């Protein structure tokens, strides 16, 4: 697998430009977890519209006269992320069906922790109104207090638990 990645400062600069362009053109920042939420809302609505409608969580997004939850800015943006990442992987010869894990972990166990990590992120992103892209990165770009608080909480917690999770990675 080709691991010749772009210089991180250059990549950061380009990412900053993409984010700046997003703010300049649309007035809002980037994001990711919101799209996953939209998918959950749409799925619940598809399976059981009655349950979705009377729920305090899904309710505001579903019901008569409302557009599909999938017709949301973030859903389209994340669709773009999939495409963009795929193109990058294609041009850099990094397309592989593979499970990545630390040297002491077998793939099955890695899947369990990935699932768990994803679930935690999903829950945490609800309370924080965003993830590292939507709350932290985009928030920092507009100098919001929430952005910096989110960033410090995320990376602070990461460092705090890193020692206990070291067997997963090193």
């Amino acid at each position, binding site marked *: 697998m080709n691991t010749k*990645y772009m210089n991180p400062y250059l990549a950061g600069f380009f990412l900053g430009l*993409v984010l700046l362009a997003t703010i300049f053109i649309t007035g809002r920042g980037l994001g990711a977890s919101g799209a996953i939420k939209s998918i959950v809302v749409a799925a619940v609505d598809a399976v059981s519209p009655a349950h979705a409608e009377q729920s305090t969580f899904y309710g505001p997004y579903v019901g008569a006269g409302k557009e599909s939850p999938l017709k949301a800015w973030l859903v389209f943006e994340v669709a*773009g992320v999939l495409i963009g990442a795929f193109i990058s992987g294609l041009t850099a010869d990094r397309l592989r069906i593979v499970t990545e894990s630390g040297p002491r972990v077998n793939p099955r166990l890695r899947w369990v922790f990935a699932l768990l990590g994803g679930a935690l992120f999903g829950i945490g992103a609800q309370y924080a*109104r965003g993830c590292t892209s939507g709350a932290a990165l985009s928030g920092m770009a507009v100098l919001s207090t929430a952005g910096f608080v989110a960033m410090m909480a995320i990376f602070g917690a990461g460092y705090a638990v890193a020692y206990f999770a070291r067997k997963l990675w090193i």
Partner: protein
Amino acid sequence: MGPFVPEPISDQLNLVVALLLGVGFGFVLEQAGFSSSRRLAGLFYGYDFTVLRVFFTAALTAMSGVLLLGYFGWLDTDAIFVNPTWLVPTIVGGLIMGLGFVLGGYCPGTSVCAAAIGKVDAMFFVGGGLLGIFAFGEFYPLTKHFYDSTLLGPIKVFDSLGISQGLFAFLLIAVAVAAFTITSIIEKRVNPAAAPSLAFTRWKHVAAGAGVIVLGGILLVLPDRKAHLIERVSFPEYQATHAAVIMDVDELAFRIIDREPRMQIVDIRAPEAFATLALPGSRNVVVREFFGREFTPLFSQRHVKKVIVGDDEGKERAAYWLLQDLGYENLAVLRGGIGSFSTTILQPSSFIPTGTRWDPAVKQFRETARAGILGMIEQSKKSGEKVVKKEKKIQGGC
């Protein structure tokens, strides 16, 4: 002037824009190596600081861009989305996410990137995200109270710290440079083979470093352009040396009852005062709003005379020069402010003769005007003519 949503980019087109920007986002993330969980986790174990470098650089680039574009008036910084702070939920949510980051090795954005190139662990992460949000949704009524707690509004970090915007930007850049240097040193110790060189001998390194310092300096001293412009036109010296086109009370009264189409009264008083008394056809625009996009179409019409009406002539003149500074033409101030208009035309106070032969005609005119204008005000109140609704605020967040 940005942002270009909802005009001229419609909500539908905005979705296409989202897709295109997403492609750029995903491409850069993958190019940076964020599609690798081991690389991402490296931040927490000191063997790979890519996340720090990319994240910090991106945030600073975007932040600097926003500040500079705002300064030059190319971006309406009052119109962009600033994510509100729910203090305690953000902290708790962030802590949970941090735990998820170390256990899962991804964040939502990077997991999508990695899944796109075939990483199975990333697919499980996304699946976990779906399950997590589903669980959250089901238990939402139990945590709703906490979820909504400690809302402080769309506050800015430099306000929370009590320093200026420029100073904060400068300090952040300084912290970033320090962090990059320190982590490079750490990386050299932990992982000497793969770490990038620390050498500052290449001219491009020196140029980059100098460029960053210059940027930091610029942002530090960048004045708040809006406050600066407003202050400049308020100085008595400025007012003494700059003339303004003045419209007399009678002329305005005549144009109002004549329903002059090429005139627009711009009322710069506070909304409360405007609600109490508004001249027919006038629009309420406070000075701060001169810089935004909402009223640019109104002010840009050169064939329409914008008559500025305020509490007193001094404030009117300041607004007049400010609009001129911003490049708008065909302006006028009302002699004596709205108070003068009120006492001369609107209130039934006694007519003060000037001793010329025009007195009877003027008196007659003013009585006609009073009746006419009061009638127009009454009519617009009856018809429930609401003030034009403000533009919908742009929503963002995750």
